[in-house]
């Protein structure tokens, strides 16, 4: 499964970047030199120093500690959204192949409707109206990325479902579960793996956009997007303040895209269609 990832140089770099970010997110809270919420009124908007490697923000909180704490939240949020999208996309896609035309028509139109929705506005509206919390945000993002999973899974499963060897298996008495497990699943998994990597990047962008707007995870809880929003207000005092959170977001998203490309270009596999991440 993971071997094709390291076949190309960009795939290897992407995997390393993602592992580093994941480790930072996992152990970050213990590495952090300061409390991410602790305000130091003597050091406001300070530059890098021995005590504060990346300086402090507008109320004197340590930027490095906030970044580490924010990494955990941002990544966990994106992972949860992908998990929601995975379930909401893959299951209906497999059912649409099996359950007949009515279900197929409805699920296709519903997914088209999701794609038509102006993505970010809808995520903002849904999260805010349902109570403006992390869980609401993840549900909203998960629902909105589910068409990506749906399309990819359906495209992979449809040729299998109508293939002659599957017909033969059914005639030979294979149960639907066996068909799914033995024939459909091996074709669907590589496609879904590619989609998962690229949609993880996409949901990271959306989560960052939402937190940037103060939606989903609200201040003072640190997130990459939220820190960027604060930095933007003090741009004239710290013009390079937004650089580190922005670089973290970009590096992680780039790594996700790189992994998706490496998995897609893996030799010996039918090339799954590229998922266009619908992010605004």
């Amino acid at each position: 499964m993971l071997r094709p990832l390291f076949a190309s140089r960009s795939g290897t770099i992407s995997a390393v970047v993602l592992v580093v970010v994941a480790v930072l997110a996992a152990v970050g809270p213990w590495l952090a030199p300061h409390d991410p919420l602790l305000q130091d009124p003597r050091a406001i908007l300070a530059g890098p120093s021995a005590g504060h490697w990346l300086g402090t923000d507008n109320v004197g909180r340590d930027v490095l500690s906030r970044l580490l704490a924010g990494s955990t939240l941002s990544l966990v949020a994106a992972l949860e959204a992908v998990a929601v999208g995975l379930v909401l996309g893959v299951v209906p896609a497999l059912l649409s192949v099996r359950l007949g035309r009515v279900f197929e028509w409805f699920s296709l139109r519903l997914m088209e409707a999701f794609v038509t929705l102006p993505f970010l506005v809808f995520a903002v509206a849904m999260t805010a109206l349902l109570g403006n919390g992390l869980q609401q945000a993840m549900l909203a993002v998960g629902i909105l990325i589910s068409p990506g999973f749906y399309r990819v899974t359906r495209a992979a499963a449809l040729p299998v479902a109508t293939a002659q060897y599957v017909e033969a298996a059914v005639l030979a008495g294979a149960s639907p579960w066996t068909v799914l497990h033995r024939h459909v699943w091996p074709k669907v998994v590589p496609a879904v793996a590619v989609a998962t990597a690229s949609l993880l990047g996409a949901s990271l962008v959306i989560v960052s956009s939402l937190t940037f707007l103060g939606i989903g995870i609200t201040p003072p809880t640190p997130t990459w997007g939220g820190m960027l929003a604060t930095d933007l207000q003090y741009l004239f005092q710290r013009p390079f303040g937004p650089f580190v959170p922005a670089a973290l977001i970009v590096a992680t998203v780039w790594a996700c895209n790189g992994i998706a490309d490496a998995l897609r270009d893996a030799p010996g596999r039918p090339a799954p269609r590229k998922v266009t991440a619908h992010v605004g």
Partner: protein
Amino acid sequence: MTVSVAGTGWGTAAAVADPARPRRSGPLGGAVRWLLRTVALTVPVFLFATFLTFLLGAVSGLSPAGLLLGDSATPADVARVRADLGLDRPVLVQYVDWLSHVLRGDLGSSWLNGVSVSSQIGDRLAISLSVAGFALVIAFVAGTLLGIGAAVWRGRLFDRAVTAFCSVVSALPPFVVAVALIVVFSVLVPLVPSAGYVPFSQDPGMWLALITLPAIALSLDAVADIARQLRTGLVSAYQENYVLGAVVRGFSPRRVLLVHVLRNGAGPALSVLGLRIPILVGGAVVTESIFGMSGFGRFAADGALRGDVPVVQGALVVAIVLVLVANLVVDTLLLRLRPAARRRT
């Protein structure tokens, strides 16, 4: 080995030779069929999307009673206000009622200040459309130029540069681009003001200066996507036999590109343009907040944060209609550009 004889090439052939459908029909028959197909696909999507929008308000459990009456309201008061507004009826009945007003252009009025949502959106739409429209122009022009350039000089430095640019840009969220643009063009090199909006009628130069940064921020991702799709489409069109035939007949490279390659290879890029439109419309919510513009995206976000359901629903409906209309335009262009696209869906 995964060679399957039955699977190669026959899937598309079956789609072409559909016996239930006449292969050839007159221009009028084609137009009617196109209209019917469009209606059959667009109307359900519109109904689903608006129903989701409406459901959002219903599921939220928010009601104007809470906003209007405050915390001291008794349950009886709340029930009375809800009954006055018809919120105690079944969701589907409310949806049909709401939709019938929407179709007549009445999006209701804000729960907070009672002002008509349609007129509020009308005031703000010009701002969002200026930015989104300009972003679309940038995406189209820059994406086309880069894509064609990369395909014509495939394998050369320009091609590799475009590929690298696309790879970097596709990892850049619009709001990061926006912040970077502000840092560079407003803080370090003060060329343009970092925020605000001036109507075109008031000061066209200032209007353009103010919408340029948000439009670039919004369009960069689309530029990369269109360039990449166009390059892929054109490169595969260049390998077709009819291109070889055209070259052999001695047509100029320009004529081969414009007449043969572009027409056949531009389809995927054009569909990407259609897919990008919801993103351009939706992206307004972030760019408008960064660049301090009071467009309709920000209007929707503020409304959502205040729990003003009609405002949110109205903004979403307008956005959905914009997206559907834009997709129709793209679909129509696609059909005119390449008759083969008719067989695709």
